[in-house]
């Protein structure tokens, strides 16, 4: 058995740093828990869902996907693109974030393989930290996940001995590469958080596939103000925009996060918008996560992390929508 005392985690992070890994970990930034590059001295925050997700590591908010050198005459030549994929360990990822990576792997490799995502995925070792508690927004067990789920992760740290220790379980070759940094020991694993299932996601998916025109959607999104907070915080949401930015010398074609909740997302040049109001856009969000994505990729585009509900001031909680849908379906 490989174990580490919980207060020695910073030592493990330091050892990983020394071994040449960039360490990304949840850090307490004055009350806000954020996943960020860890450096010695930063306080790890282990019992909260960070405001951002592991998706940030593999699919950054903004990324240059093509570059061109511009000529005075108006011409251009393609410029080389440096792919940045530093050797990284995400330490103490929530299992829902790791599970989200499995979902993202599917879309980023759907026939066309996204080279930069895959390069980062290959260079990143995800060490999950099993959850020994959950809050009222968590619902991983409703979407085939678990507080100690292993999907998408290379290793799992399991709280043990009443939270004083962590048991390190390697789940993949990448995870096994880290074993040497964790000492042998003995500990009794604690029970992970007990999270009651809130809704039957398969039933929700079935209802969604055949109730597109339901009047349910009319009132369902009255509170939604159409920002991108939920989509950006979500570990699975991956919609993006492509925009060119240039100065006199260079053009950068950027891939930036986007959200189906924005009014302009599907607006045609003709002025026609297939999703002209927030109820249509909310319907798209829910249907994509619980019906469309599973139809295509056999997995929900939601891992129950609860970030959307936790941070939405307007109370748009996707789990609640699913509960209401399940009730409608009965």
């Amino acid at each position, binding site marked *: 058995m490989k174990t580490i005392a919980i207060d020695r985690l910073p030592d493990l992070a330091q050892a990983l740093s020394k071994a040449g890994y960039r360490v990304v970990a949840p850090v307490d930034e004055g009350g806000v828990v954020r996943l960020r590059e860890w450096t010695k001295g930063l306080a790890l925050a282990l019992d909260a869902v960070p405001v951002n997700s592991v998706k940030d590591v593999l699919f950054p908010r903004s990324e240059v*996907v*093509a570059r*061109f050198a*511009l000529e005075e005459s*108006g*011409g*251009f030549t*393609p410029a080389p*693109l440096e792919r940045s994929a530093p050797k990284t360990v995400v330490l103490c990822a929530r299992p829902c974030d790791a599970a989200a990576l499995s979902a993202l792997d599917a*879309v*980023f490799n*759907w*026939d*066309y*393989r*996204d*080279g930069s995502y*895959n390069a980062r995925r290959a260079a990143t070792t995800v060490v999950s930290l099993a959850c020994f508690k959950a809050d009222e927004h968590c619902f991983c067990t409703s979407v085939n996940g678990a507080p100690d789920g292993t999907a998408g992760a290379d290793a799992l740290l399991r709280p043990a001995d009443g939270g004083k220790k962590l048991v390190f379980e390697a789940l993949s070759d990448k995870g096994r590469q880290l074993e040497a940094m964790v000492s042998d020991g003995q500990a009794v694993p604690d029970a992970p958080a007990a999270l009651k299932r809130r809704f039957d996601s398969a039933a929700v998916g079935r209802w969604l*596939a055949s109730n*597109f*025109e339901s009047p349910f959607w009319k009132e369902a999104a009255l509170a939604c103000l159409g920002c991108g907070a939920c989509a950006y915080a979500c570990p699975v949401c*991956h*919609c*993006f*925009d*492509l*925009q*060119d*930015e*240039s100065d006199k010398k260079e*053009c950068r*074609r950027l*891939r930036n996060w*986007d959200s*189906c909740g924005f009014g302009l*997302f*599907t*607006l*045609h*040049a*003709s002025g026609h918008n*297939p*999703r002209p109001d927030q109820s*249509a856009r909310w319907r*798209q969000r829910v*249907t*994509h996560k619980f*019906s*469309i994505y599973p*139809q*295509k990729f056999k997995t929900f585009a939601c891992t129950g992390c609860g970030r959307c509900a936790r941070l939405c001031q307007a109370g748009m909680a996707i789990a609640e929508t699913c509960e209401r849908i399940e009730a409608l379906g009965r």
Partner: protein
Amino acid sequence: MNDDLYKPFLMRIESARDEAPDVRTFRLKFADEGARAEFFGRYRVGQFGLYGVPGEGESTFCVASPPTRADYIECTFRKVGRVTQALQDLEVGQALTFRGPYGNHFPIDSWKGRDLLFIAGGIALPPMRSVIWNILDRRAEFGKVAVVYGARSVADLVYKQELAEWAARPDMTLVTTVDPGGQTPDWKGKVGFVPAVLKELSPAAKNCVAVLCGPPIMIKLTLPVLAGRGFAPQDIYTTLENRMKCGVGKCGRCNVGSVYVCKDGPVFTLDELSRLPAGDM
């Protein structure tokens, strides 16, 4: 397939032709033979691409020329916004970027031996023109070929030169029409909306495939005419358009229900279309 998804082909404008107010056709050549061969190794009729001007962005149009003409590709588009304006500001000889071919295609091999009926409206002729030329370039493989094309006015008809060529060909039938009020004094074609003209034509459904492209209202009114003539939903083809950015099924923008227009489309049979939520179009 294709690790660096956003790396475009470089194209040069060989010629440009104004088709109608704000509508222009470009004939584009690939910057090098390797690129040309790579593209035509994959290209099937009905596919689309993203045409771009570095610094301005990319815009999605069909490839308006067929794979049987493998020296060049053509695109026809209306100036409606920033990128299309920038494209139309380009001169012959200047370069632009192209990503593609993307999407599915018209299964023309399965149409061999069958009669073909093409119905198009306005700026929707370009995707059709690609498949019409593909058929005409392989004429002997197919049965009767008929094209019904209408626009708001004579000025709005695109590919006017080609319409004249098609009208002169003995191996196909062309019917052109303009909306009432859109005719000029010397207009020799029909006057009337496409669905009405089609009804008058009374096409035979037996062993016939219909391909239909046009504004939503035209499609809506034409489908009952075809149904009335006995065309089966799986024998009616159309193309869907939607706002696109990546073209490769990742940016999440173009889905109609569970179908991604850029990957599962843009070519659909009416049978497939009828299973999609109309409220998401």
